[in-house]
């Protein structure tokens, strides 16, 4: 066994990746964790080790504080942690190729857990590429990692738990809010209330959300309900914001920073590149990997844990990470099958409790139809600057799918590799061709998963010939 080989390779050091590593180490597996961030924690606990020693920890809230002990347990578990490592290719068997500090290398492992989490759902609208428009998640990362807040009162548009949490954190930090444009459509609460009995299993979280909403209402900034359309305008940067509510009223306000958020979707590029089957999740409006009860994908020994398996939040991510690690430990003979099964029972119960609020949240904050049908002039592909109008015109000629449209227009061919335009492309194709979006599929994802330079490739050490 070479120094580059471990029993288990985990990609991502958020709640799922860290929990999986701790569990796998407890059963004696050798574990390597690749992380593209400089420190463990994932997005929810970004920079938590650094913040832990400062007074800022308190104002980021209890859920953030919980990351301090998780990161400490992970650091102490004996897994090999490789920060700032970008995975760009995985070969069956498994050999993973990564770039770290400008140098490419490869490592091997017997099993893989993809714990790459989620990204915010892209929200295309005219002007969303202007400097000054960011996601709410981006602003929260700026608060956690750089103690930075918008200079002037900030506009926030969208829906979901994250804007409420960020606004609460921002006010606690002394930031100012110009207004909140709530994009939750009319009638959503009624639809969501069907799921209330199940959601009561998470009454604490419901109460937390309600208390954020009430506190924000008292904070005194304008809250505009049922906002359906947005437009950002300005010469070279955001200067004004135009929004239209469901009753057709249009309002124009000066703005320097606009933060948008319409929920999160699993990161599926790595599973797709590995050939794992995915399916359309109609409740969460995204593709999710097809998984068994342990988180194993259609590819043997490739597991997905955390929000990459379907959006469930940090509390669902941890049991998912542990389940995958238990299965791998049993398969490698480090844990008796019946012991793994018994432990899995506890984890599945924890997972089910953690997911109890999800149907309520998914129904309440389902993306408004406008998210998937941007105006013709909107740039859908930010990298290659392809508009919705161009994609619509092309989608009507013959019956091309996303991959043909990618070849025709270059949409999805830039450095982000479709992470920002993939779902909009799928919805435009579906709408023009009157097909269910789940049948349209997604871009075919190929290596490299992240751009690699020729210099980095050249730095790969010569490999042993295949046996």
């Amino acid at each position: 066994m070479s120094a580059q080989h471990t029993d288990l390779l985990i990609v991502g050091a958020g709640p799922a990746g860290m929990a999986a590593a701790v569990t796998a180490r407890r059963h004696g597996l050798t574990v390597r964790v690749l992380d593209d961030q400089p420190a463990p924690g994932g997005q929810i606990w970004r920079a938590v080790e650094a913040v832990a020693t400062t007074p800022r920890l308190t104002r980021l809230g209890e859920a953030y504080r919980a990351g301090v002990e998780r990161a400490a347990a992970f650091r102490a578990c004996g897994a090999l942690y490789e920060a700032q490592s970008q995975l760009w290719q995985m070969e069956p068997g498994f050999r993973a190729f990564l770039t770290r500090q400008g140098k490419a290398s490869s490592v091997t492992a017997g099993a893989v857990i993809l714990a790459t989490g989620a990204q915010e759902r892209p929200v295309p609208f005219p002007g969303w590429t202007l400097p000054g428009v960011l996601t709410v998640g981006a602003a929260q990362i700026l608060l956690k990692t750089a103690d930075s807040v918008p200079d002037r009162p900030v506009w926030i548009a969208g829906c979901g738990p994250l804007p409420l949490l960020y606004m609460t954190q921002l006010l606690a930090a002394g930031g100012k809010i110009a207004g909140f444009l709530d994009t939750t459509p009319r009638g959503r609460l009624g639809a969501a209330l069907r799921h209330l009995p199940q959601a009561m299993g998470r009454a604490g979280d419901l109460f937390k959300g309600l208390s954020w909403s009430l506190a924000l209402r008292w904070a005194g900034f304008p809250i505009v309900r049922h906002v359906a359309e947005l437009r950002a305008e300005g010469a070279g940067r955001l200067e004004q914001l135009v929004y239209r509510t469901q009753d057709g009223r249009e309002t124009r306000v000066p703005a320097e920073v606009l933060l948008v958020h319409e929920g999160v979707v699993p990161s599926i590029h790595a599973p797709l590149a590995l050939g794992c089957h995915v399916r359309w999740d109609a409740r969460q409006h995204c593709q999710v990997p097809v998984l068994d009860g342990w988180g194993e994908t259609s590819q043997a020994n490739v597991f997905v844990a955390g929000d990459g398996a379907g959006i469930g939040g940090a509390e669902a991510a941890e049991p998912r990470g542990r389940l995958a690690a238990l299965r791998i430990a049993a398969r490698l003979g480090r844990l008796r099958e019946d012991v793994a099964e018994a432990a899995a029972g506890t984890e599945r119960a924890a997972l089910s409790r953690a997911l109890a609020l999800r149907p309520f949240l998914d129904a309440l904050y389902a993306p408004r139809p406008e998210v998937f049908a941007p105006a013709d002039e909107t740039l859908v592909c930010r990298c290659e600057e392809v508009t919705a109008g161009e994609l619509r015109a092309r989608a009507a000629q013959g019956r091309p799918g996303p991959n043909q449209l990618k070849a025709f227009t270059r949409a999805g061919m830039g450095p982000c590799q479709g992470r920002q335009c993939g779902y909009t492309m799928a919805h435009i194709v579906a709408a023009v061709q009157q097909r269910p979006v789940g049948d349209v599929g997604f871009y075919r994802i190929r290596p490299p998963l992240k751009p690699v330079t020729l210099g980095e490739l050249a730095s790969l050490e010569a490999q042993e010939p295949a046996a």
Partner: protein
Amino acid sequence: MFRKLHDPGAAAVTVHIDGRPVRAEAGESVAALLLRQPEGWSRTTPISASPRAPYCMMGVCFECLVEINGQGSVQACLTPVQDGMSVVRQQGCRSVSA
């Protein structure tokens, strides 16, 4: 666009943005530093030369590509600042040499 809530004090480092020295805090990302500059933008696109700035801050949008210490198209949001670092706002395509 953004401002920092505390003074970095002893953790302060100096980064050069387009040759101009700027104070930053050890551990924060180059993208966070760029968002505190008055210019607002951090690159122009290869297609239409329109200005862009960091958008997602977590490595998935690639809007924050800049030249760092001579290396082109580096994701500023995934790169912590270092004392003496040189950051150049990238205009259009990165050059072959960068």
